[in-house]
């Protein structure tokens, strides 16, 4: 039974019979087309006029999510929950090889980082995508170790494109500027001094976004983050998320 389950999962991600979306694509294909061509259209081919308005395209939302990049005219939103990281993200393809993003990241509701980002697709091959992303935001950390300050993150993503799944590796380098103020009250008057230190958080996520349909995807990933390295210990975690997307023009 377990072998059957594994085989079923394998055929689902790597090569499965056509699902509902694929069936729709197959139905619109000429009768002389092979099933493979009909089910996995050329990535560069224009979307069908019947499906474009519904956000059903040759490129699934799962593949966009894995690369952190949406092509021109595409959008997607997603949310994930896990330990210790939660997140929500919206991204919008604006053309010229660029995609914008708005993201909210949280660790156990104690550490929050809202940010906006710009993603550039550096390598775009049928099976592989590499993107770079710059996020600018603000860090709020509440509790005993309260922190706040401007935050910037550089991300590098490697995403593979399988039939129904998009495995990916994301490496991030997150930097926060933590400013402190010292007020000295002397007999001669009061002086204020400012100082700052940096907080670096290294980030690695290894996961897979499974395409439920062209518009829906499920993200499963393992996270390894090292907040305020090297002064602390790295905490491994995992998350599960849902992504949904379509067209905005």
């Amino acid at each position, binding site marked *: 039974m377990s072998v059957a389950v594994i085989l079923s999962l394998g055929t689902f991600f790597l090569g499965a019979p056509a699902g509902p979306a694929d069936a729709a694509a197959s139905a619109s294909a000429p009768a002389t087309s092979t099933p493979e061509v009909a089910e996995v259209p050329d990535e560069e081919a224009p979307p069908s006029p019947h499906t474009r308005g519904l956000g059903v395209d040759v490129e699934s939302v799962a593949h966009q999510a894995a690369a952190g990049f949406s092509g021109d005219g595409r959008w997607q939103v997603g949310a994930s929950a896990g330990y210790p990281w939660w997140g929500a993200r919206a991204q919008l393809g604006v053309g010229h090889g660029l995609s*914008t993003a708005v993201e909210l990241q949280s660790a156990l509701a104690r550490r929050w980082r809202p940010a906006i980002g710009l993603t550039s697709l550096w390598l775009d091959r049928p099976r592989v995508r590499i993107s770079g992303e710059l996020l600018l935001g603000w860090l709020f950390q509440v509790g005993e170790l309260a922190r706040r300050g*401007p935050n910037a993150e550089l991300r590098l993503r490697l995403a593979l494109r399988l039939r129904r799944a998009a495995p990916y590796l994301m490496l991030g380098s997150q930097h926060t500027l*933590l400013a402190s103020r010292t*007020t000295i*009250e002397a*007999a001669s008057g009061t002086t204020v001094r400012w100082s700052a230190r940096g907080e670096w958080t290294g980030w690695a996520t290894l996961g897979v976004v499974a395409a439920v349909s062209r518009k829906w995807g499920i993200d499963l990933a393992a996270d390894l983050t090292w907040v305020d390295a090297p002064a602390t210990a790295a905490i491994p975690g995992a998350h599960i998320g849902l992504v949904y997307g379509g067209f905005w023009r």
Partner: protein
Amino acid sequence: MKRSPRAALALALALLPALPLGGCVNDDVHLYEVTLRGEIQVPRGGPYSGHVHLELRHARSGEGGLAYPLRRITTIELDGVGPFEETFLVPTDEGEGLVAYAWLDRDGDGLLCAPGTSDELAGLREVDGFPAHALEVTILLEHPCAGAEILYAP
């Protein structure tokens, strides 16, 4: 409907100014400058030689069940017994009151009564008048090998 990519970028960038509203100060430290004048004394005929370790401490820190006495602020080393004048920065958010504790380092090892030494004298006085920028205190070193915690009765 055709929309400009620039409009989307402008919308995203427009959110940036709202982010600093949460503040950016992490450690907000308030220091109060105190010039402490006074004298370190030993009993008549007592030992005089050796450096003096002078510690400034808060009388009380913390609140409720977590309150505790004698939080250390700083330690300086004086050349010996006698008059002194030193300036300290006292963190006002971390405690109340001031206590001065001193001990005479007879053997120069930096340790109060290490094994084999039993004649290192110590003394403690609560500094009256804090907060004020100029304070005075006189400490009599008369208790051999006594730590600050033994000498202070809150």
